């Protein structure tokens, strides 16, 4: 993509004193994205919004969501980094298939992911049945929430990490190896720091995706306030009953996602976008 569009843009000198049509052309999309969010924000008066946010069930759902999505992101990083490195650095049979497999959770409806998790980790599943015999149960627990979120969010991290690792010059890694660094040291001292921007983008995307996860969670982990009822679940059920609560939670969800994404971009950042230019 970069080579496709980027190189041409750099060749042309910046144009001045000409009205920029790109702003006008971007406006419909910006309005389309921003208006519904503003609608949410201004649906209730600030007092109502505050009263709804102060409700204990809302606070429980917010806390649970922040906790589980953080665990899920941690799991995505720990489990996803080795695979991303492998995909970026090694040529092997079936690489394309593996690469495709990783992308699958992005395009699957989350309900399908939840069902698949339930069939394998449920009480009668390949993994769930032996565990059940040991007296361990995953479904309807907080672990199930984290697993559902990880399943859905990990591809976003792996995808970003592959791009990051692939952009590290192999010569740098080779040079370090010649200087006597072992495989782990090369990874730790060279590849990881150089790929950190992509990795952090991946972390942000995975975390935000985990925070918003709904379909897989409600099928695999069920819905129990304080145990498995995350913000998106509470929003959905709130919509059935009390619109005010649903709107309040939606505002928090949008706000949390926006602030975290922004912070990551600002703190680690600026560079994320600068980095993506040639």
């Amino acid at each position: 993509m970069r080579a496709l569009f980027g190189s041409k843009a750099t060749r042309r000198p910046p144009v001045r004193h000409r009205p920029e049509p790109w702003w006008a052309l971007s406006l419909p999309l910006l309005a389309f994205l921003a208006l519904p969010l503003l609608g949410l924000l201004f649906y209730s008066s600030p007092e109502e919004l505050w009263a709804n946010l102060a409700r204990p069930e809302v606070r429980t759902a917010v806390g649970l969501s922040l906790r589980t999505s953080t665990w899920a992101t941690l799991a995505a990083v720990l489990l996803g980094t080795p695979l991303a490195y492998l995909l970026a650095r090694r040529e092997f049979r079936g690489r394309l298939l593996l690469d495709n497999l990783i992308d699958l959770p992005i395009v699957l409806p989350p309900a399908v992911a939840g069902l698949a998790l339930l069939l394998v980790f449920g009480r009668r599943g390949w993994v769930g049945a032996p565990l059940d015999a040991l007296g361990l149960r995953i479904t309807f627990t907080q672990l199930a929430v984290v697993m559902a979120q990880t399943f859905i969010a990990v591809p976003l991290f792996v995808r970003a990490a592959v791009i990051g690792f692939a952009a590290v010059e192999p010569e740098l890694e080779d040079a370090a190896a010649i200087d006597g660094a072992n495989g782990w040291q090369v990874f730790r001292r060279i590849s990881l720091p150089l790929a950190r921007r992509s990795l952090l983008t991946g972390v942000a995307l995975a975390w935000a995706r985990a925070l918003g996860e709904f379909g897989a969670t409600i099928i695999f982990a069920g819905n129990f306030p304080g145990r498995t009822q995350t913000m998106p679940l509470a929003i959905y059920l709130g919509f059935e009953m009390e619109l005010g609560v649903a709107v309040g939670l939606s505002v928090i969800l949008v706000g949390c996602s926006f602030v975290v994404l922004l912070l990551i971009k600002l703190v680690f950042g600026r560079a994320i976008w600068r980095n993506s230019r040639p």
Partner: protein
Amino acid sequence: MITDERKRTWRLISSIGLLLLLLLGCQPAGGETAAPTEVSAVTGATAAPEAATLNVFAAASLSDAFNEIGAAFSAANPGATVVFNFAGSNQLATQITEGAPADVFASANAAQMEVAVASGRIDAGAAQQFVTNRLVVVTPADNPAGITTLQDLATPDTLLVLAAEEVPVGRYSLEFLDLAAADAAFDSGFKEAVLANVVSYEENVRSVLNKVALGEADAGIVYTSDLVGVEGVTALEIPDALNVVAQYPIAPLNDSAQPELAAAFVEWVLSDAGQAILGNYGFGPSSGQ
């Protein structure tokens, strides 16, 4: 180099365009009504009068029975196409309040019918009870927790799944627990003991049933109408005295573009033929207006 890139860009754009065309081509043509989920085909009629589309908003639990009724109704009324919008009654009532195009509303409870009446689009007193539904306890066929009586639901460490309080069946389930706790045959702490066993409050009655059928839960509470054609579960009856009978009301909308057809549909549902179909799907006869 530039032309090469341009060529590649065009190839990319045109292949995406082709793909989009293909995908769009897969959509059924001519769907002009809002949120249709099921379209029963117009049956080959000899002298069809003008074609008319009837939008029926019906509770999710009615889907199977109403699909059959819709087909039969279309056959009896050449030219009429029934388009169903199946969802939770509360969502349907919200959609009606928000002005969604609807001709008939069939709700799973009186409360949501009242919401629709309050919107002004259904006349007060226009709603008629047409069918009833009862609660039943289900367990997986192999019954891992060994539940043979309703009292067994209170046994500690039983994995129980109920519908959320926000959906009608979830509220009825709680009412059943209240009735049981007040009954001499049950412990006074029955409700609390049962609720302590709940591992999930599902968002609709179908997912309660599925969690039980998959063996994830030891028991759940659903409608009898949900059990028709479902394998892998065993039903445990709830006696009449403790059961909560859901009354389903149906009414035409007063701003319907096809008032006669809407009235005819309601009549058809209330007719012997309509009631027979509903009976086949596990619904009980209505106990009157």
